[in-house]
């Protein structure tokens, strides 16, 4: 595949790995306190496991797999609300595929479908709008999910529905925003992070400026990274170089996709349709101020939260679940008390076991060969 295979070249990978090793050798990093670099985005986590990147790094570097998997951080109460909407007789509930398996307190959307709810997988909110047009007697609800990456497409679909006066279409809005979440992680007292790989596709929308506070106030380096394995290696090298040279900056490795100012039309659509919620609940991290958006009053008629009555209950994470500590890099997935026992991909207790992008599911499924071999 052109423009992809070039970024997966193993010869270039070994050159980069040697560069990283050479850099680490000059940095005097104690074995008992390796450098912790968090990749914020679930897409990065997926690539790291898919290509076995972690095992190629020297042992002085640990990757901490962050909160950027929107499916994983969805709290149970919100899944319950989805199920409640989906189970109404006249509703066609549409969702991205990997949200189907997220457990609610009663059931997942996959189970609701098995029990008779009309739940359909779509690939774009525009597909859901097309379904609404094709089924004028049904209420079509789209499960709006994801960070700034998917936020604009939902916003543009709502604007289209408004323009075409499609009355039987609405969005159950669970879009979340990355910056307050990174801030919440940085504010936590047990933080053990030395640098960040910044989200690529979120940044394509919001640009690089919103991260400046990380360097300025928290004094942590960040490199906005692409999703191919060479992108990730290069970004790790760039973070290391910042640490070695005692610089703290927001650098952009993914300049082929991420413009400094972001995507202006997308940002306009987002600003027009959504407003910040006072707080939003995250699985594993608890409530984070201003970390979610809802539809503005002008678009209330497209807001499934106002159109349907939902239980809107807060369901606490299971007590045994240590997702929060894993997310902050305090413990590794396999150090969690319930990893692989009470919490497995078949029966996930915690957020990180839910989607293949979640750190725990990724370890369980793809396995950190490095970790497994260290344990042998």
């Amino acid at each position, binding site marked *: *595949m052109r423009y*992809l295979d070039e970024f*997966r*070249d*193993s010869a270039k*990978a*070994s050159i980069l*790995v040697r560069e990283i090793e050479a850099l680490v050798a000059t940095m005097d990093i104690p074995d008992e306190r390796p450098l912790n670099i968090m990749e914020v985005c679930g*897409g990065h986590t*997926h690539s790291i*496991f*898919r*290509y*076995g*990147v*972690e*095992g*190629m790094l020297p042992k002085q570097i640990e990757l901490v797999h962050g909160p950027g998997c*929107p*499916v994983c951080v969805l709290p149970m109460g919100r899944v319950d609300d989805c199920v409640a909407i989906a189970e109404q007789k006249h509703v066609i509930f549409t969702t*991205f*595929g*990997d*949200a*189907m*398996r997220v457990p609610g307190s009663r059931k997942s959307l996959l189970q609701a479908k098995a029990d008779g709810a009309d739940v359909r*997988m*779509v*690939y774009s909110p525009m*597909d859901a709008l097309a379904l609404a047009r094709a089924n004028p007697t049904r209420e079509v609800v789209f499960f709006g*999910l*994801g960070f700034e*990456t*998917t936020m604009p497409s939902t916003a543009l679909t709502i604007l289209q529905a408004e323009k075409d006066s499609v009355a039987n279409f609405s969005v159950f809005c669970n879009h979340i925003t990355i910056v307050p979440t990174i801030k919440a992680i940085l504010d936590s007292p047990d933080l053990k992070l030395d640098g960040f790989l910044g989200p690529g*596709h979120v940044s394509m929308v919001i640009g690089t400026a919103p991260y400046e506070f990380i360097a300025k106030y928290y004094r942590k380096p960040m490199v906005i990274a692409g999703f191919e*394995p*060479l992108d990730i290696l290069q970004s790790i090298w760039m973070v290391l170089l910042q640490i070695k040279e005692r610089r703290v900056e927001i650098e952009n490795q993914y300049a082929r996709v991420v413009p400094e100012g972001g995507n202006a039309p997308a940002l306009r659509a987002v600003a027009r349709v959504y407003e910040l919620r006072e707080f939003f609940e995250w699985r594993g991290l608890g409530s984070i101020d201003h970390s979610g958006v809802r539809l503005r009053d002008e678009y209330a008629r497209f807001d499934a939260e106002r159109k349907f009555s939902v239980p809107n209950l807060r369901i606490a994470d299971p007590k045994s679940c240590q997702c929060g500590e894993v997310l902050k890099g305090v413990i590794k997935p396999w150090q969690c008390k319930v990893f692989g026992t009470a919490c*497995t*991909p*078949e029966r996930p207790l915690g957020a990180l076991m839910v*989607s*293949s*992008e979640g750190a725990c599911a990724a370890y*369980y*499924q*793809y*396995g950190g*060969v490095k970790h*497994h071999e260290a344990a*042998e």
Partner: protein
Amino acid sequence: MNAPQRIRARTLGQVHVPTVTLSHGGGGKAMKDLIDDVFVRAFDNSALAPLEDQARFDLSDLARHGDRLAFTTDSFVVDPLIFPGGDIGKLAVYGTINDLAVGGARPLYLSCAAIVEEGVTVDLLRQIAGSMARAAAEAGVKIVTGDTKVVHKGACDKLFLTTTGIGVIREGVNLGVHLAREGDVVLVNGLLGDHGAAILCARGDMALATQIESDCAPLHGLIDDLLAAAPDLRFLRDATRGGLATVLNEIAEASQVAVEIDETATPIREDVKAFCEILGLDPLYLANEGKIIVVAPPEEAGAALAAMRAHPLGVSAAIVGRVQPGEPGRVTMRTVFGGRRIVDMLVGEQLPRIC
């Protein structure tokens, strides 16, 4: 064998309405007409013709082919019924043939049970039965008994087929999933993931235009050549649902060995790679309907590869991995990038990723 002659002389019933209704499942004349018109006409053979409640074979006939019977069954519920490269009928015939063939058996006889949703057109059934008949004839097997049920709308999805097969295992062939040992070589007979990708595309709900066709094919001919060239093979399995990754995990688990495959050596069509890339799927888990995984002792790997490559269904055959020292039950992959990752069993179905 007088009975077939006598029955053959009778006129086959015909259906004169366009769609199947519940009356075609009622056990009366309408049902008989449907069975005659669709299945008996298509499958036309002496063992089926008497329409007894069972097919009957001479043991001596069977014994000519080997010394053990192989017996298997499989149900087919594919959506859509007709897809690029095949249809449910062809799939049901080849699927069961392959399940027999990978045990080293010569496939001989099949049954066919059909569950039909009311409202399905008779023409569609005729088309599917015709496809089954052609597939069986080309593979040299006979469909000798069957059953038809019609169910209420919504009780099944248009048409479900179950085929059961009998084959005979030739003397001296002894294949087993538990027989892999360190040093063995893992091979496949060609490009992986075509069927799974073709079906997902054919469902049409992702508006992706591709040229990918199902690889649906009968593998017993290839397996004949393979076993002739490499008689001491350890194990064969067709990599259907769950794909290569699942079969490798089954081998590693049953034989208590570690298996490592090499991503760069794993043959996957560019279209399939691109399709998986877009949807966030892993081609190692995509279904195949014409691919076998072969575990060969090292001294036979070359002969096995050559035999497969010489067969039309094995031109892209490749050595993809090895059984090697490591944690028993574990499958790993050396990635194209130079890293290593674990290739585990899939928990449920692969779902496309959000972003």
